[in-house]
């Protein structure tokens, strides 16, 4: 069973959000990293840009497949996690090892806090994951 912390908000596309003041820290969920497996490259293509909720902000390359990352909220993408984007070694695999911690992807300066209420809470996301696993 995937870990789904209670203090985070979630999207239907398997991103998580941790809100700190007007900043949203964004990552992908434990369920998502398990589905992708063997992450080898992460790029936040929207770094420095202002994006709308659900727009593509980057992508994750795993050995088997590529997956887009979507903005959970609108705002300016002000930082990408440099620790997972090093050329050397298996730094991107940090997203597999610690998806809710060291493996965070980027930070967005929230432009419309009302959007936060459209995100899923722990119970709703747990429900979504269970449905994904049963078909």
């Amino acid at each position: 069973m995937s870990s789904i912390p209670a203090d985070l908000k979630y999207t239907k596309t398997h991103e998580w959000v941790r809100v700190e003041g007007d900043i949203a820290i964004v990552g992908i969920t434990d369920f998502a990293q398990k589905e992708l497996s063997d992450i080898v490259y992460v790029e936040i293509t929207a770094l420095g840009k202002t994006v709308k909720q659900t727009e593509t902000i980057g992508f994750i390359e795993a050995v088997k497949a590529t997956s887009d990352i979507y903005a959970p909220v609108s705002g300016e993408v002000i930082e990408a996690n440099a620790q997972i984007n090093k050329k050397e070694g298996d730094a991107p695999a940090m997203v597999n090892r610690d998806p809710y911690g060291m493996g965070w992807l980027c930070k967005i300066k929230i432009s419309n806090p009302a959007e936060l209420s459209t995100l899923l809470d722990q119970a709703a996301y747990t429900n979504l994951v269970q449905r994904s696993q049963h078909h």
Partner: protein
Amino acid sequence: MSKTTPFYSRHLAAGGKIVEFAGYQLPLQFRGIIPEHHRVRTTVGVFDVSHMGRIRVWGANALQFINRMTTNDASNLEVYQAQYSVMCYPDGGIVDDLVVYRLPDHFLLVVNGANNEKDTAWLKEHLSGDVQLENVTTEVAQLAVQGPKAEACLQKISSIGLAPIGFYWAAEGKVAGVDVLISRTGYTGEDGFELYIPAEQALKVWDELMAAGKEFEIEPIGLGARDTLRLEMKYCLYGNDIDQTTNPLEAGLGFVVKLDKPGGFIGAEVLQKVANEKPRRRLVCLEMEDRAIPRPKLSVFADGNPVGFVTSGTLSPSLNKGIALAYVQRESARVGTKLTIEIRGNRHQAVLIAPPFYKHGSRKK
């Protein structure tokens, strides 16, 4: 409802992430594609390949029949020898690629799992003379034990010496006390064996193999690493790199197409024409020069012009680079040519290299 192989309980016990493949519930991965890949390249890993189709053919005209159905020359086979081969349609398109074993009283054809029913029907359709055919897929389980330590590991539980078994040769003996067919074959580029085991005794072989391999850190390997390992060797995957719309000559499988063998084979006329005119396109190896990872169906360009498409692509765990197989027009298919692949709207540079991508495999030749 999809089927399970005799090893399903072991895949679950080992924490395998199960997916449906070729109609079977099979492990995509256990510990992870990359660590499993390195396990096979450095010591030894075990693949459940029971989903492969296994077809027995016998009778007075069996050799003649197989030679008509396949492109390689089965009349060259000695008893206990195996050969890689291809079955073609009359238009030269590929029905399947397969391994043909000549055994004392029958031939064994090992085909792709996803093509098992299609191939069996195709073979039956063409039966003539004294030829019997039986699909024994469910009665026989199949394991691949692959890696530089495969022989040392398997020898511990084998009744016969494995060293004399040459590449693409087989022998019968006991493994874990069970009568099996052992062949020095595989799909990884490493030394290794495939075992054909009576299904009801399959778990005994699995369990003893895992115990014998402990000192080599043996572990089960999923379909994910099977794909990265074969791709690093430019071994074709039916459905990706070859299918009914591709012919074996353009796929680089000319070494198993014996155009002048006596009696000919299905597809020979068209393939002779292709050989005379030279294939218009070639399946080539492309190595990325940046960190982008090519994926199937992406377009390939030479000097800005489209010249082909990717059929298989992945990150190569051994080279830590993106690699791809792609069909490209003959004029662009020279080693050293710089091509570009369009990935997410950007053109990324790749260089065309001579196969295989991974050149240090322990495979015997």
